[in-house]
Structure formats: structure tokens, C-alpha cells
């Protein structure tokens, strides 16, 4: 167990150059700002990504609340008593009350009145606002929040630390990719400021090539997504090289933490699939601006071609979103149960397997498009993807067996992930089966399904990872009680919001509807109430984090007893991560044979090993 010395080396003297943490300001305010703006330190870039992603999450969340609020009440025209300017009932010549038609149920239109007088009080105007809100929500959450969330923030911060490296392989490229991300986001925000986009985040042609023809909104938004793609590619490339070249001495491929495996698989998909969406989005911009005729049938193009291109990227990207979440869960569950992960190699290969098969299933987004036999092949391949995913869930649950489970906030979230992701995964089955998909496709069932997977999977895990690594990132503990209260609130709000939508879907509620027939209203009200509870939960987390930064007690270097290398570093880590290059002598999950760094054998008694162990 000589490795314990890695972390202690500089305390005991060692080479003895004492460095401050990476958070220590370099001077006055502007010096510090300049230092952060030009930093090549992966930790600072990770924190900057975290800030940017959380800001975009706030924007996307606002749009989601707008969508849910609009859906509280179906749009309808009613006859109401007309009044004159003084507010008195208006009577006609015979003394009868004059009635006028009024539209009710358009909350957004009440809040944001139209600039154009002619649009006042029309169904179209309220619907346009709604269509912009859901497009905004989808585009921001997918391109600017979920895709970069775990890889760019937690990945940037922890991949080098977990590998025992000083930084990523290409630090300057890393900074560049952050600026590209910010540029892309600015494009998107500009597009919102000049009126927003009403295409849906999928930008399906020929709607997207013809809507708002005289405005630049759609072009700006699509270019924003195009630019964000480069950020994704560069980050992926950087991580692949980092994993290949910068592992600490003694760390073979199968000694890597599973988070690294997941990020490695993610990066491969990002590098291979993102160029396809880049080309597709660029073609879409050309189509709009120069009318070249690739996707628009009125010019001789084919709209289904666009769907194939789009989903060839966007399906693998579903796994760009979920694989990092798998990685985070594979870290949290063993650490907080002090238990070796069950089936390490199965999980690692399942990550790669998912990455591979993810390229072959894009057609399942188009079962209702054509009615071709080709759909059968895509359906079969879709079920194939379920197997490695199911294997992972079994492995995580098996890891809990005979563990020492502490219900810390990250662990609570990890267990909630298992609950929500299981629902998300299982409800994928009726969507993968051809016959049922023809009914459920483009209904609220799909909306509920992908929120269980994307939000219940990725966002919940992102928050879990944030709580897991927060002490390491900022050197402060947070109030666990209130963090747990926040977690339960999020859990209740989430299920209320999205479980109701499964029933809406099977009963026939189509997605992207600004209004609906009143039979669906009860379920919509429950769903909207759930979204407000969800907001409350996230606000609790926000206050817990702010309180932690301001008044949290200092975090120990290894609060949970983790064995991966980042726990050997200080909290927060010094600028070069480790005083000495760490040497790996134990596996990332050898909780039965290793006292965690910074812990002593009295607090962490090792179990008795049977003779046939390992």
C-alpha cells in the first residue's frame, strides 16, 4: 500500500514546492478574469463549462416551464359579453347584450403581447409563441446542455485527474473548444433575441427550409448547432488522445475507472458522428439561402433524406448523452457502497458495444415515414441495443449486494437514476416494436420516454456527479440534509411531470400541440404541477450550492473514501493536480483490499478475505 504516499508526498516534504489550489486568485480582479479567460488548465475550463452549461440549463428550463404553463389550459374561443370603453355592458339597439368572441387558454400570449396589432387575439399568435418555446427548450437542452453537460464539465475536470495526468493532451485546443461552445451558444441566443425559431429542435425539412423565410432566425440557430458540433468534435478528439497517451504509470486499459471507459466511448461517437450533422446542418443553411434543392421537394429534394442524415448523427448522440451518465453511475455506486464494481469488463465492453450498435439504429425514428420492410431491420437492431444497457443496470444493482451503502446525496441520486432510467429503458420497448410504435410515435408517450432517459438518465446523473465531485472541485462540503431534500423534491416533481405523459400518449395526445381536446386536460394539469415541483427542487439545489461556496466547511481530500486517483489530490486540487506523478498500484474499485487515500486503517477496517478471493 505504498501508494498512499502519492498524496502525502508533498506534505511530508518531497520535492516540496508548495502550490496553491487552482482556485487561488492570481492577483486583482481583472488579472484573475484574464487568467481564467486565457487558462489552459483543464480544471478551470471544466468549471467554465459548468457555469455555461448551468446557465443554458436555466434558459432551457424557463422555456420548459413556459411550455408546461401554456398547456395548463386548452385554447378555445368563447363568447363573452362585450363592454364599452367605460367597462359597462355593451347593448345593441334592441337592448340586448352584444357578445364578442374571445380566445382563452393562451397564457404566453397574455404575457408577451404581439408587436403587430393585427395579431392581437388570434389563435396563430399564441401558437407561434408556444412553438418557439418548445423549439427553444429542445434545441437548448439537447445541443447546449445535455451533450456538453457531463463530458465537457465533469469530463474535462476529472479525466486528467483520474488518469493521474497534469492536463488533457491538447490544453490549448481544450480552451478553443470552450470558446467555440460559447460562440455557438451566442448564435443560438441571438436567434432567440431576434424572434426565435419554430421548427422544433429536429429542424425537419421542408418546414425548416420555408418557415420565417424572410428572417435569419433559423439560419442563426442552425449555424449555432453547427458551430457547437466543432466544440464537441475537438473535445472528443482531445479525450481520446488523453486516454491513450496520458495514463499514469501502472494504469493499464483495464485499470482505468469506468468513467474513463464511458468517456472514451462517448468521444469515439462524437468524433465519428458529429461531422455528419455538421454537413447536414450546413446543407440545410444552403438550402434556405440558395435554394439548392437537396431536401425541399419543391426544388426536387427529398425530406426523408434529411431525416436519415439527421438521425444518423442524432441517434448515436443519444448515447453521447447517456454513456457519460453510465460512467458517473459506475463511479458513484462503488464508492458510496465501498464495494468493488460487479462485472468491470462487462460494463467496459458494454460501453463500447452500445457505441458501436448506436450507429445502426437511426432508422427507428422513421417507422411511420415509409412503411418499408427496412423498418424491420432497424427494429431488430434497436432491441439489440437494449441488451448491453440492461447488462449495465444488472451490474450496478449486483454491486449493491453485500456493500456498505451510505445514503449520501450522490448515492441517493444514483439510486433514483436506477429507478428512472429503468422506466425510461423499459418504455423504449413498445417504441422499438413496430406495431405499437405506429400508434405511439410522435405522441406524448415518446416525450415521456425520452425525458425519462435524457433527463432521468443524464441530467439526474449530472446532478449526482456534481454532488459527488463538488467537494473535490471547490474544496467545500455542502449541507447533505438540504441536498437530500432537494433530491427527493426533484424525484417527486420529475415523476409527476413525466409519468402522466405516458398516459397522455397512449390515449392519443400528439406532441408539439399548442392546444388539445379537453379530455386530456386533467393529465396536463398534473404534469404542469409536477414541473413546478421540479423547479422547486432545482432551486433548493442552487441554494445548497451557493451556501456551500459561501459558508460550507472545508472538504477533506477524500470525503467518500474513493480509490480513483482524483481522491489522492487535494481538495481543491493544486494547479498541476498532483505534487508527484502518481503511480497506480491498486485497481479503481479494490475496496476490499485497499484503505482509501487520506483515510486510516482504523476508520476503514478491511474485510476478512476468504482464501479463494481474487
Amino acid at each position, binding site marked *: 500500500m505504498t501508494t498512499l504516499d502519492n498524496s502525502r508526498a508533498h506534505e511530508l516534504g518531497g520535492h516540496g514546492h508548495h502550490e496553491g489550489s487552482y482556485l487561488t486568485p492570481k492577483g486583482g480582479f481583472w488579472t484573475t478574469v484574464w487568467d481564467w479567460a486565457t487558462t489552459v488548465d483543464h480544471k478551470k475550463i471544466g468549471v467554465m463549462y459548468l457555469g455555461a452549461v448551468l446557465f443554458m440549463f436555466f434558459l432551457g428550463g424557463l422555456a420548459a416551464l413556459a411550455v408546461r404553463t401554456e398547456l395548463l389550459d*386548452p385554447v*378555445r*374561443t*368563447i363568447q363573452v359579453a362585450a363592454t364599452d370603453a367605460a367597462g359597462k355592458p355593451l347593448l345593441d339597439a334592441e337592448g340586448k347584450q352584444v357578445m364578442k368572441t374571445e380566445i382563452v387558454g393562451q397564457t404566453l400570449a397574455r404575457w408577451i403581447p404581439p408587436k403587430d396589432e393585427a395579431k392581437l387575439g*388570434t*389563435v*396563430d399568435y399564441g*401558437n407561434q409563441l408556444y412553438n418557439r418555446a418548445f423549439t427553444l427548450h429542445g434545441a437548448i437542452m439537447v445541443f447546449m446542455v445535455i451533450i456538453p453537460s457531463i463530458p465537457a464539465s465533469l469530463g474535462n475536470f476529472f479525466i486528467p485527474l483520474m488518469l493521474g495526468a497534469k492536463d488533457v493532451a491538447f490544453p490549448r485546443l481544450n480552451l478553443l473548444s470552450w470558446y467555440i461552445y460559447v460562440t455557438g451558444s451566442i448564435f443560438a441566443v441571438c436567434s432567440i433575441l431576434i424572434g426565435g425559431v419554430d421548427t422544433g429542435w429536429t429542424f425537419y425539412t*421542408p*418546414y425548416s427550409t420555408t418557415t420565417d423565410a424572410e428572417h435569419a432566425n433559423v439560419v442563426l440557430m442552425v449555424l449555432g448547432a453547427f458551430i457547437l458540433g466543432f466544440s464537441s468534435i475537438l473535445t472528443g478528439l482531445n479525450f481520446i488522445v488523453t486516454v491513450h497517451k496520458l495514463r499514469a504509470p501502472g494504469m493499464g486499459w483495464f485499470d482505468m475507472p469506468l468513467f474513463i471507459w464511458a468517456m472514451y466511448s462517448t468521444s469515439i461517437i462524437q468524433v465519428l458522428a458529429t461531422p455528419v450533422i455538421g454537413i447536414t446542418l450546413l446543407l440545410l443553411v444552403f438550402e434556405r439561402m440558395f435554394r439548392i434543392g437537396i431536401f425541399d*421537394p419543391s426544388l426536387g*429534394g427529398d*425530406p426523408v433524406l434529411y431525416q436519415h442524415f439527421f438521425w444518423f448523427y442524432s441517434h448515436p448522440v443519444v448515447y453521447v448523452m447517456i454513456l457519460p451518465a453510465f460512467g458517473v453511475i459506475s463511479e458513484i455506486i462503488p464508492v458510496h457502497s465501498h*464495494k468493488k*464494481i*460487479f*462485472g*468491470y469488463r462487462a460494463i467496459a465492453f458494454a460501453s463500447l458495444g452500445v457505441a458501436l450498435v448506436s450507429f445502426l439504429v437511426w432508422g427507428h425514428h422513421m417507422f411511420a*415515414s*415509409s412503411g418499408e420492410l427496412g423498418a424491420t431491420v432497424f427494429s*431488430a437492431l434497436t432491441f439489440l441495443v*437494449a*441488451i448491453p444497457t440492461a*447488462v449495465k443496470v444488472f451490474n450496478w*444493482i449486483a454491486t*449493491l*449486494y453485500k*456493500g*456498505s*451503502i*451510505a445514503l449520501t446525496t450522490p448515492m441517493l441520486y444514483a439510486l433514483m437514476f436506477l*429507478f428512472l432510467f*429503468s422506466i425510461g429503458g*423499459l418504455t423504449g*420497448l*413498445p417504441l*422499438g*416494436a*413496430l*406495431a*405499437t410504435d*405506429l*400508434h405511439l*410515435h*410522435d405522441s406524448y408517450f415518446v416525450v415521456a420516454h425520452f425525458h425519462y432517459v435524457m433527463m432521468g438518465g443524464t441530467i439526474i446523473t449530472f446532478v449526482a456527479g456534481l454532488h459527488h465531485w463538488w467537494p473535490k472541485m471547490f474544496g467545500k462540503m455542502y449541507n447533505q440534509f438540504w441536498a437530500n431534500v432537494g433530491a427527493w423534491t426533484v424525484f417527486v416533481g420529475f415523476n409527476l411531470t413525466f409519468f402522466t405523459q405516458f*398516459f397522455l400518449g397512449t*390515449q*392519443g395526445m*400528439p406532441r*408539439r400541440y399548442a*392546444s388539445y*381536446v379537453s*379530455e386530456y*386536460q386533467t393529465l396536463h394539469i398534473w404534469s404542469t404541477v409536477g414541473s413546478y415541483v421540479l423547479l422547486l427542487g432545482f432551486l433548493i439545489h442552487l441554494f445548497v450550492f451557493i451556501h456551500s461556496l459561501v459558508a460550507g466547511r472545508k472538504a477533506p481530500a477524500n470525503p467518500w473514501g474513493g480509490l480513483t486517483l482524483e481522491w489522492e489530490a487535494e481538495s481543491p486540487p493544486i494547479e498541476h493536480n498532483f505534487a508527484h506523478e502518481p503511480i497506480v498500484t491498486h485497481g479503481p474499485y479494490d475496496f*476490499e483490499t485497499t484503505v482509501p487515500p487520506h483515510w486510516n486503517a482504523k476508520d476503514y*477496517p478491511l*474485510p476478512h*478475505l*476468504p482464501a479463494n*478471493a481474487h
Partner: protein
Amino acid sequence: MLKTLTNNMTTTLAEGPTGWWSYGWRWFFQNFGVNHNAIETDRLYMIIFWICVGWFIFLMAIMMYCVVKYRRRPGVPAPYSPSHNTRLELVWTIVPCFFLFYIFLEGFHVYIDKLVAPGDSLQMTLTAKKWDWTITYPNGAASPERTLIGPDSTQFGGINKSPAARPVPIFYMPGDIPVHINMISQDVMHSFWVPDFRVKFDVFPNRYTTYWFQAKLKDAQASNLKDSTGKDVVTAQGEKVPFIDHFIFCAEYCGDQHSEMLGIIRIVPMAYYLAKTEEWNIEGKSPEEIGKLVFQSQGCSACHTVDGSKGAAPTWKDLYLSHQPTNQGSVLADDNYIRESIYTPQAKLVDGYPSNMPVYTSAQIDERRMQGLIAYMKSLSKFASSTPAPADPAAPAPEKK
């Protein structure tokens, strides 16, 4: 699927689904047994549902058991246990495969049923445009009937107390016979979904897709068709007309009024269906009558009114031969202007209205129907009488209002 429908549907529920899988189907589907494919879809859905429930409870029970049983006790280490077991891992990889393969096969099987229409189906065509559906019957007629769907509608398809934005088309279809629809869009993509039939297919602007269904019509299931005064509709033979309504939703996002792009499929007896389509056949009708049918069946009435009230587009009352302010200056609304506005609507836009009039082709509105529309507009305009005689001498004398 609708509260308003379930009143009519009580007997359907009585002959509801059977089998172990059917427990709980009412949580998901409010209407059952519309046709064979819908029954098969619900059966598959409920089987998948119960498989999922089983797996979910199994997994969560183990998880909760572990969390409680192996909770952390200070000073007590987690006991040793193996972290790998090839036999167990093989089992939990292979067992789910059987479930998945079964679901895939069943899904494929019912899918083929939904895809392939019987050879003796009734052939129709459907045109979708922003934001309306038109179905053309085998004899070339199209349904001019529309209804307002209001959230508070007391009788679906009947009298509405609280109308929504605009009326939606009603398509009469014969019951207990396969109907096969060839679908095409005029602008962007749409998707034709009748939730009660459990099938949707996308509608493209550049290729045909097809849709087929065979809806049940049993007298016991249906209520009787009533006219606008609430009296029973009676056929020439003196029989009441049973009917069942099904909603049509557009399921592919298509813009501002995507959520208002609805329709109704009304299943009626074959004899009544034939009588209706014959009634709407334009053969042997005067141009004005033809124009009125076209006005209602081609979706004009969705935006244009004929009583002078404000709609989403200029009213047709007193439009003919009036002077319209447009973005090309003031224009006399004569025959040629009307023709141009139907075939190339963007050429001149009347001030104060959005440019969302769909383009019609001469295949949809042929010369005869065009003449009909013009004749119909003449009949609505007070300016028409002061003009020279129209080109079509068969047109009736314009009515003064």
C-alpha cells in the same frame, strides 16, 4: 378515446378485451376494439407493459432490499463477495434476449397487418396542407361537412357550445369494409393519425404513402346521427343512421395551427355513405352549387367566411367585383383576380392578412370547379348584378342581399 364518445361506447366496453394481459388496459386506452389491428396493438402493448412491470419490480425490489439490508454501519466493513460470475452474467444477458425477440416478432407481425391493405379495399385519396385535410371519394366527390370541435362539445359532431378556432372536416366512411387511402401533402410534412385505429403514417409532399383501416360499425355501439336541430337523420327508407366518430390528429409538426389540424372520421352504414357521396358528386349540379361544395370541401371555409364576419382571410361576402387593397395596389376582384389568387396566392396579398393561403393546383380545382367558385362568389356579392353577363350562361342570377 373521448369522453363524448364513451357515452356511445358503453357496449364496446362490455365486450372489452379478454386474457391475462388485458388487466389495466383502461389506464392506457379509453376506447377499445375499433378494429382488428387496434385490438392486436393493444394486446401487444399490454403484454409489453406487464413484462416491463415484472422486470421493473424485480429490479427495484432487489435494489431496495440491498439498500436496507446492507446500509452502512460505522466500523463494519463491507464483507467480501465476488465481483464477477460468468454463469450469472451469461444468464442475465441471454434471458432478456428471449423477451426482446418475442416482442420484436409480435411487433413485426402486427406491423405487416397494418401495412398491407386487403385487395378489395375502397380506394380514396387524401391531400394534406397547412392546416387541413381533404379526402376525395372514389366518385371524385369530397366531403363539404365540417364541425367545430370545442372542448365543451356536448355531442361530438353535433351541437357545440364552445367552438374552437375553426371547423374541422368530417369524412363519412362506410363501416365493416376495408378503406385504403393514398396520401400526399401539398406543402410540408404531415402525419395522419387516427388514435382509435392505433396507426399513423407520415404524409409527404413528394411521394405517396398509404393508410388503411376497417372500422367496426355495430348498431349497438353507435348512437344515431342527428341534424343541427337535434332531430334524428332519416334515410329515404325511413331508417335512422347509426354512426361512430373517430378523431384525426396531425402528428408531424407543421407550423402555427398544427394543433388545430384535426378531422373526424365518421363511420356510417354503407348505404348512407353511398347516398352522401352521391349527394356531394358535382355531376348534374349548377355552377353555384358546385362552388359551394368546393368552398366547403377544399378547406376554403376554414379561413374565408361568407357572412361578412372577420376570418383569417378576406370574407367572400361582397368580394366579387369589389376593390381590394393589396400589396400591389388596389385591385378589382374580378374573375381573373380570383383565378390568380387560387392558383398563385402570393401574387397579390390583401392588406392586413397573413400570406398563408395554400397553393391549389388545377388538378384539385379544375376549370369546372373554378367556374363554380366564381359563380358562388358572384352569388354572395352585391356588386355582381351591375356587371355584364358572366361567361357561363348557366350561372344563376346573383342574389342581392
